[in-house]
């Protein structure tokens, strides 16, 4: 059964496709996969086929893209996907402590999703906010200058 975008998403997809010359639809693959992830929570093979049909290429070419870039999830994630930066500047300013604290509080190792599907904890490379480290993304929101206390407040606000 072929997946189709909702009318809203379809409009957005058409706008994205209009940014490129007519015969260059393949350029839309990255934004369309983002859209697919928004629409269906994560990128499934069916989503890849849907995008492939829209840009007129074979599905494996979309899989090449979807599996290359770290931002596309091929498995479902929790309601709150947490990415903690662990690259050098944040490592120097205490991300190990932050990661350890979060890991303990959520009962998750990096890479894991909780049984209750609320949280996914991951490590990520530099988020270009090195003067405010340690930093983390919670879904699309960036939190900086993290301390255990701040983390407590953030988690509480996510109830």
């Amino acid at each position: 059964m072929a997946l189709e975008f909702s009318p809203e998403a379809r409009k957005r997809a058409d706008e994205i496709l209009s940014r490129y010359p007519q015969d260059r639809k393949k350029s839309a693959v990255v934004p369309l996969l983002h859209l697919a992830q928004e629409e269906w929570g994560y990128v499934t093979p069916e989503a890849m086929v849907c995008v492939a049909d829209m840009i007129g290429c074979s599905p494996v070419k979309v899989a090449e893209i979807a599996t290359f870039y770290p931002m596309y999830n091929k498995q479902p994630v929790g309601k709150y996907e947490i990415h903690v930066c662990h690259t050098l500047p944040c490592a120097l300013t205490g991300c190990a402590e932050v990661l350890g604290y979060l890991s303990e509080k959520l009962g998750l190792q990096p890479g894991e999703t909780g049984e209750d599907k609320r949280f996914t904890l991951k490590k990520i490379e530099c988020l270009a906010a090195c003067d405010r480290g340690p930093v983390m993304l919670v879904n699309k929101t960036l939190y900086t200058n993290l301390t255990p206390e701040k983390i407590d407040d953030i988690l509480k606000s996510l109830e």
Partner: protein
Amino acid sequence: MAAPISVLTKELRENPRLADIDVYIAQGGYKTVEKVLKSMTPEDIVNEVKNSGLKGRGGAGFATGMKWGLCAERFPLYLCVNGDESEPGSFKDRLLLEGNPHRVIEGMIITCFALKINLGYLYMRGEFFQIIDQMEACLKQTKAHGFLGKDILGTGFDLELYPQAGAGAYICGEETGLIESLEGNRPYPRLKPPFFPAAIGLWGQPTIVNNVETMAQVERILDMGAEAYKQIGSADSTGPRLFGMCGHVKKPGIYEYDSTVTIRELIYDVAGGIPGDRKLKGVIPGGISAPILTPLEIDVPAEFGAMGKIGTMGGTGGMIVMDETTSIVDALLNASSFARHESCGQCTPCREGVPWMNDILRRIKEGKGRSEDLELLLDICVQIHGRTVCVFGQAPGVWPVRTMIVKYWPEFKACIDQKRLVVLPVDESYLKPDQYEFVPPVPGNFRLKPEAVAAAGG
């Protein structure tokens, strides 16, 4: 010492709402575009930028005017602006994109007019969610105000600019990796020659790839004129620089100075020194790929030329400062893991060699290093350096490994000999400059002098 300047960042320090075009215009925004489109020819603009001595701010420091001059006249041409800031220690493009997006757009419009480009893309990190949304809104505003679209300001010049999101891969910051990503392919960098973007770029057409900050600098140059711009900094490195101080400093942040400021001044005067007034162990001066400087090497101005002369690079001006509590072995393992994570996998030396080095470094950290491992690591560096499709193999692949091992040989040796992670007292952890040599011209090409190896115990 050099005084702080505010050529690039004055407005955004003072006004948090510059993303609103009306606020931007009220501050004098888009006046440069008007002036340029109405009273200058494309050739005038290119000459102005050449004359200004502007060097690209994306890391490579290539003269922007020269890059523009190399653009083949085979229509259509395209502009790709690199906002894929992923170099650890670099966070200045985020500042400009967040705080003053319209200045970047203005620079893009001027660039496109100068090079007869009618279609451009601003490629931004996929993780810059709010920035991307904001940029979409800004571009809509710019178009609504008549600075984009057809027949801009009645000059007959057409231009469309679009945002393009990345999806979390550092290699998209390589100019041909960016182009491949924009074409919808796996972002494998291209062979150069023949695929220099100015000759064969996006969809096979001549393409200019410039950094976000470079675009902002272009607007400043055309606003104040090349002569005034050249007065800032030195002949080697004109114009303002944005230095990103991070790591072990009291006042991390972005600081706008000219290139004559020294690394020492940046660490101690600008960024307030090291917390707890601890001792400096080392500083990586241009983003993680830049070869590290020991405490004996920081009296060098942040000019592109001066940095290049001592074997490192000005890069993106992102300075990662490390104090005496830092294990250089651990720091290198971190840099190596970053490289392993971001290697695209296209070519053999990087795909296989970078993870191998990472495995060896991990063993050394865990106390399982062997006496031959350091020589092995340096040998693997030789096998990767200059033999890859793109510069990733060198930086961040080889340069951190080679320079940290060579300069901090004692600390690495100690970890191997003592079979555990050792943090030596700062002054014992690195070699004196006369114990190693830099072989120009490529940064990071450091070699231990044989007597140093002997002195350090083999």
